[in-house]
């Protein structure tokens, strides 16, 4: 198996962290505000990183500034994995509001 983007380890690590933070919140160790704030900051930061790097690479492609360094793609993918997983956590956190957007 060629391990390049660490898709599975990052996903498992984030799920464990999320479950831990959810446990700490339900246990009363951390407040709902702290629990929400942690995951929103991670989501916003990772989404902005993935978006800005993605747009930058598209500009490079449009201007034919080739080749694109793979380290740029590497960090785009890593931030993308983070944004995807935390995006689903965000849906879970705002589940009540999320259900209403389809009603």
């Amino acid at each position, binding site marked *: *198996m*060629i*391990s*390049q*983007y*660490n*898709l*599975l380890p990052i996903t498992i690590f984030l799920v464990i962290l999320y479950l831990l933070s959810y446990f700490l919140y339900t246990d009363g160790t951390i*407040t*709902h*505000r702290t629990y*929400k*704030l942690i995951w*929103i900051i991670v989501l*916003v930061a990772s*989404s*902005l990183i993935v*978006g*800005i790097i*993605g*747009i930058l690479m*598209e*500009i490079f*492609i*449009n201007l034919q500034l*080739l*080749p*694109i*360094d*793979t380290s740029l*793609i590497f960090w785009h*993918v890593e931030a*993308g*994995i983070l*944004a*995807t997983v935390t*995006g689903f956590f965000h849906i879970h956190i705002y589940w009540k509001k999320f259900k*209403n*957007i*389809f009603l």
Partner: protein
Amino acid sequence: MYSLCLFVNQNLFIQHRSIYIINMAYDIILIGFVFIISYIFSYALYRRNIIKKKLLSKIWNIIFLISFLITFCMGILQAGLIDFGFNISIGPDLIFWHGEVGIIFFVVLLFHLQSNSTSFRKLLSCKSNNRN
């Protein structure tokens, strides 16, 4: 990390840790312009009380969710194929549409941040109560 040439097709190949993309152009300005104008138009409708705030956020949340699911599923699929060593050539169409929907996602992300900035600031401030 990469072999001499990981895969070659009509539009894209990877060689010596560098990505070469040929004959591909993304409509960043066009897509960005269309979505910014649409958002301003829908926001103006809300400000003139033609549509409610709930409907405005509902429309843009649905666009945001759809663009998130499409672009990130395409991205995770591509990363997964490379990560798990599936020797399947990723078509340039998949990369192209990942990029195009990604532009929509990024623009709508900025709208989402703008429309939820008040609640985000409230969350950041220490005064907000714990049940918020």
